[in-house]
């Protein structure tokens, strides 16, 4: 069971005031901390769990710069056998289409039974790359996967639908599965673990090695402008010291008829 997992490094944006960059095409990222995309964390864990049980290898792959190797090292520490980084310069000039083309070009030549991606990435929230890779590889797929079992040459998946309904399918290999959060409990990664994993192979490939040019990767969807959310009336903020806040809080509950 050889599994390729496509991963992405994303900024943490909770509790920070995001600043729009000068070009209005994105946000300023130099002050932000970065992590492995939450969905991808579950995807790597799932791949490692499956190979621990059924044998085989896990390859983590990302499109990005040297800084993005940090998430590949984390994947290696979690149990991936090797990692590949596609060096394509400034990735903001690509859309999901372009990214998926690069990934499928590399994955095509790797041995694989399964390809995993996260359902989506926490930054742009597009959720397109996985299924585009599947279509480009010409393999079948399942989305929002919350359970996986290998059954003689096939894979039994549960896909989560709205309202929490699960849809169970039996799928031929090879296949691409977009992994949903909660499918497992991703293992803890220590600094020591990351240091130990430094010996594992991390290969860098650039666009010329893929035989790809900017032209064939030119975006079909372009961000014209990003901006802060339009003002809404917003919540009425309960101000003052905790005592005053508590009084206001109780008054609201009483008024709304939920305080006996």
């Amino acid at each position: 069971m050889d599994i390729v997992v496509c991963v992405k490094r994303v900024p943490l944006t909770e509790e920070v005031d995001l600043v729009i960059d000068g070009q209005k095409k994105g946000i300023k990222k130099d002050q932000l901390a970065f992590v492995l995309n939450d969905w991808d964390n579950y995807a790597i864990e799932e791949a490692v769990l499956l190979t621990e049980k059924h044998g085989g290898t896990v390859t983590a792959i990302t499109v990005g710069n040297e800084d993005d190797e940090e998430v590949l090292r984390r994947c290696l520490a979690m149990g991936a056998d090797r990692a590949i980084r596609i060096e394509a310069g400034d990735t903001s000039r690509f859309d999901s289409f372009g990214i998926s083309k690069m990934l499928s070009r590399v994955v095509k030549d790797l041995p694989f039974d399964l390809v995993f991606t996260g359902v989506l990435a926490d930054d742009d929230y597009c959720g397109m790359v996985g299924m585009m890779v599947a279509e480009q590889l010409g393999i079948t797929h399942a989305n929002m996967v919350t359970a996986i079992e290998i059954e003689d040459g096939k894979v039994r998946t549960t896909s989560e639908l709205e309202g929490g309904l699960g849809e169970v399918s039996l799928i031929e290999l090879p296949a691409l599965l977009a992994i949903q959060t909660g499918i497992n409990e991703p293992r803890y990664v220590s600094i020591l673990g990351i240091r130990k994993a430094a010996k594992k192979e991390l290969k860098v490939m650039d666009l010329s090695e893929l035989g790809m040019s900017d032209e064939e990767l030119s975006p079909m969807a372009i961000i014209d402008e990003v901006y802060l959310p339009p003002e809404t009336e917003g919540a009425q903020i309960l101000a003052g010291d905790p005592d005053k806040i508590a009084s206001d809080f109780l008054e609201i509950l009483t008024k709304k008829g939920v305080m006996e």
Partner: protein
Amino acid sequence: MSELFVVAEHRLGEIREITFEMLWKAGELAQEHSHTVTAILLGHEVSPIAESISDRADKIIIFDDERLKNFNADIYKETIAGLIEESKPILTLIGNTSRGMELAPCLAVRAGLPLATDCIDIMFKDDKLIAQRQMYSGKIFSDVSFAPSAGYILTIRSGVFSKDRIGDRQAEIVKKDFPLKDMPLKKDFIEFVETAAGDVDISQAELLISVGRGIGEEENISLVKELAEALNGVVSCSRPIVDKNWLPKHLQVGTSGKSVSPKVYIAVGISGAFQHMAGVSGAGTIIAINKDPKAPIFRTADYGIVDDLFKIVPVLKDRVLETKKG
């Protein structure tokens, strides 16, 4: 003049609300730009579903076949790609749902058309298509435009457009022969599985105290439970709390959990992602407790407390208990 395609979504014989919402937006765009609205309906024995949207589209193209009884993205993709090739609609709208998110990217690659997902608005500015989206958990908005193309595919977020009928339409029904009767399938539908019901039904609660990832550690959930107990309310939660197995799935609020309609919903350490907020649209009053004043939840909540939950929640609990005693 062109056609606007809307891919109808239905499940277990019932139309999904996103279909009405897409038809509403398509109807509005059709009025503004003299386009027509064509609903695409794939399934088995779907006449009642066609009936339910017949006054919202100008045309309904139906593929009715035993093989379409269960959703299969590959079959949908091939069938719809054929239709797109034939009619060259300027827009194809698909729900940004579990199934739509599987179908749309495959279809875009297959048909060679640009795609934007999870759109919250669609405009034509000087004939140029603009899709409005959100990034970074809703903290940033973006306008997306596209390389010139004969058509575009957009997936639409649930709950952003009206479910109402727009304009006066009477659909022409076009039944087509299903062209893929012999297409080999690499994926077989087996069954549906429901979430276990559990002992409390949060959809019936009048007062919910809901806990999110801001709680940090499993053992801290007791803080929220104590506040709920003091208030005689029921505890619910956001998805990450269920993902971590800290609380059971039947307590999850949101698109992949339950929709709730309490008189008061108190959100503690929840950022307000749209998948979460979609589940509380029926709540009477929303009170959010969050230490990040920029958290998106303050945009939709009625009242906000900007503070560290570890400081304020115990104070609130103590005050409730005192008041009850006194």
